[in-house]
């Protein structure tokens, strides 16, 4: 597939790794912001390929992980109502609330439907005028244009049985929260490629300047991540701190103006609670008042749920890059993708889930026998 396959070339990957090795004079800690980048790193074993001086820590870029428990409970309460068709991206189906997940609700007779695109909700609403169609609109800025279009078209077509439960979050305030947190170790960032395809990267200049951290807007394929890492290391080694664009085939500094325009017409920025982190001011989107009749949070009386987070979960620290999954005593023992206790295990993109899926749970607390076995195999072949 064009523009995908060529960014998975193993030979070039090895060459970039070697270039990183030659550039490195001291250890650095770099955070990749996006859950999709975490996924790509762990899936391809990129962190195993990198030289030991580069430590990749995983960021909060997983909208599924950071959706607050209260919001999930609200979604579940709505999905349980008779006469409601509850539509959601597949990612949210297995996320447990305080009492079951959407799959469980479906098994008890709830009309829960997986959609690939928010536009499908328009079709469903048109076809079911006597039912309330509710769409769980989660995501970072990347998904905001699609969700915005859904609300816009709902109003244009007067689809008054269609509403959105909005839980949108924004990346730049999250980066600042990470950099502000005591004990922060992150020295550079691989910026979120697809978020910036929508928003551009103007917002990252002041962050880079204020905190003196390099931010390299990076794509998702292995070569993208490796090149982004190289560019970040080059900046760190030379003491520079600016915003650079590795993903230039997809985006430029301005981003997608048309998308930004519609987003601004439909959403306003407000405070949002991030699961595992807490409330970050001005870090999310809410529907503007003129779209109230499509705002599920206003239409449905779903107040009064007191969610209960397991105390043992340290996903807040993981989302801020302070800890790794195998630092958590519950990792892979009490807490698995089958029985997630917290944010970073619930979604395939979450760091804990990614680590578990790609077999990093062989021995918690640091030592990774798989890594050892791979190194030994490579040594054997290198010495032949």
């Amino acid at each position, binding site marked *: 597939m064009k523009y995908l396959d060529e960014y998975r070339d193993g030979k070039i990957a090895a060459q970039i790794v070697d270039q990183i090795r030659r550039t490195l004079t001291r250890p650095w800690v770099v955070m990749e912001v996006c859950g999709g980048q975490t996924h790509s790193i762990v899936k391809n074993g990129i962190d195993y390929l990198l030289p030991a001086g580069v430590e990749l820590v995983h960021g909060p870029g997983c909208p599924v992980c950071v959706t607050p428990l209260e919001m999930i409970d609200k979604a579940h309460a709505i999905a349980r109502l008779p006469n409601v068709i509850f539509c959601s991206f597949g990612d949210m189906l297995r996320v447990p609330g305080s009492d079951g997940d959407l799959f469980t609700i*479906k098994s008890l007779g709830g009309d829960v439907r997986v959609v690939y695109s928010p536009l499908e909700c328009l079709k469903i609403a048109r076809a079911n005028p006597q039912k309330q169609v509710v769409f769980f609109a989660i995501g970072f800025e990347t998904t905001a244009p699609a969700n915005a279009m859904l609300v816009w078209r709902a109003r244009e077509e007067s689809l008054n049985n269609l509403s959105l439960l909005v839980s949108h979050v924004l990346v730049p305030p999250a980066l600042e929260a990470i950099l502000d947190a005591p004990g922060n170790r992150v020295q550079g960032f691989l910026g979120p490629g697809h978020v910036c395809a929508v928003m551009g990267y103007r917002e990252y200049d002041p962050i880079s300047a204020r905190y003196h951290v390099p931010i390299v807007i990076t794509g998702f394929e292995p070569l993208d991540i490796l090149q982004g890492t190289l560019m970040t290391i080059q900046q760190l080694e030379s003491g520079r701190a600016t915003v650079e664009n590795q993903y230039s085939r997809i985006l430029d500094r301005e981003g997608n103006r048309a998308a930004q325009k519609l987003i601004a017409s439909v959403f306003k920025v407000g405070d949002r609670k991030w699961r595992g982190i807490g409330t970050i001011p001005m870090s999310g989107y809410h529907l503007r008042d003129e779209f109230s009749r499509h705002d599920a949070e206003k239409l449905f009386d779903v107040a009064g749920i007191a969610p209960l987070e397991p105390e043992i979960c340290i996903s807040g620290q993981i989302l801020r890059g302070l800890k790794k999954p195998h630092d958590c005593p519950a990792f892979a023992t009490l807490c698995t993708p089958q029985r997630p206790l917290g944010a970073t295990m619930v979604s395939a993109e979450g760091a804990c889930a990614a680590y578990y899926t790609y077999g990093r749970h062989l021995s918690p607390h640091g030592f990774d026998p798989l890594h050892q076995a791979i190194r030994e195999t490579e040594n054997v072949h290198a010495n032949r």
Partner: protein
Amino acid sequence: MPTADEISKILGASGPDIVPASAPFGSCPLPIFDHKRIVLGHGSGGKLTADLIEKVFLPAFRNPTLDKMDDQAVLKIGNLRLAFTTDSFVVTPIFFPGGDIGRLAIHGTVNDLAMSGARPLYLSAAFILEEGLAVDDLRRVVESMRAAAAEAGVQLVTGDTKVVNRGKGDQIFITTTGIGIIENDVNISADQARPGDKIILSGTIGDHGMTIMSQREGLEFEGAIESDCASLNELVITMLSTSASTQRRDFIHTMRDPTRGGVATTLNELAKRANVGIVIDQRSIPVRESVKGACEVLGLDPLYVANEGKLLAFVVPEMADDVLDRMRQHPLGSNAAIIGEVVDTHPGMVLMKTEIGGTRVLDVMFGEQLPRIC
């Protein structure tokens, strides 16, 4: 491992999914996390399914044959070895590119038998029909079964029909059983796998599962994907006759068709069953461009997508190339490839060398693979 009470205390919430191991069939030493209700994931062939079998079915029906957990039971009756299997088919939609529920029922059952090296002979089919099903649709399904049985060289010798109320049966469910004979010098089962065995995959993966997924609302893809539904018994006979000169037939240790859960789940099952390690190379795995494109768009991994006309064979290393050549001469094996080997390190675990030269663990699927946006 903490007790269920300790776990409940730690978790705090009275989540419905935490239930101490009730033991209608006898006590269980480990605390269990049970779903109180069956969810769709229990039918996906991944961890949830395995869990259900282990915790609900096996304790009730334990016996040496069942414990082997192959896709077919091998029964010794006098001097004869019979392969015996059963299967159910509930696919929606009932008609899809490349097949239908009837064709699937015949080929699926034949394949379960063929994977033990048996010659499939006789099938039964029980139909559960939903009130309101068009008789023409039923005719189409039945005609498809007739053609499939003829293709496979088996006979449908007994059957049953029931009808359930509208809304209780999703158009048509088919349950089958199948019997075949295993010749004396053929000994193929999961626990025969040995380190050094080469792993051969008979062709492209993900065709069936992506076809079904593409028929779902909102996931339509235009053209180019159809189910690979087919009977593999002829291919197996071809493979077994590789060594015509020596009449040797012991060079295939294990075979399995990677149906739901895909190649990754099946390799894991085999690795655990035989207590061996498996290493495969992602770059050697054949995938059609159309299936690859569909998987990329939905965020799915072809290694976990169902197949209905493919097999995995563990073959002794000295015969692997010859078996591969034989397979490639058969229409159902034209894209066959050696994708990996069985090793004695990391028993029970499947490792994969990735496209970019890294290595990762290939785990079992949990429940259904769902399209994702992240």
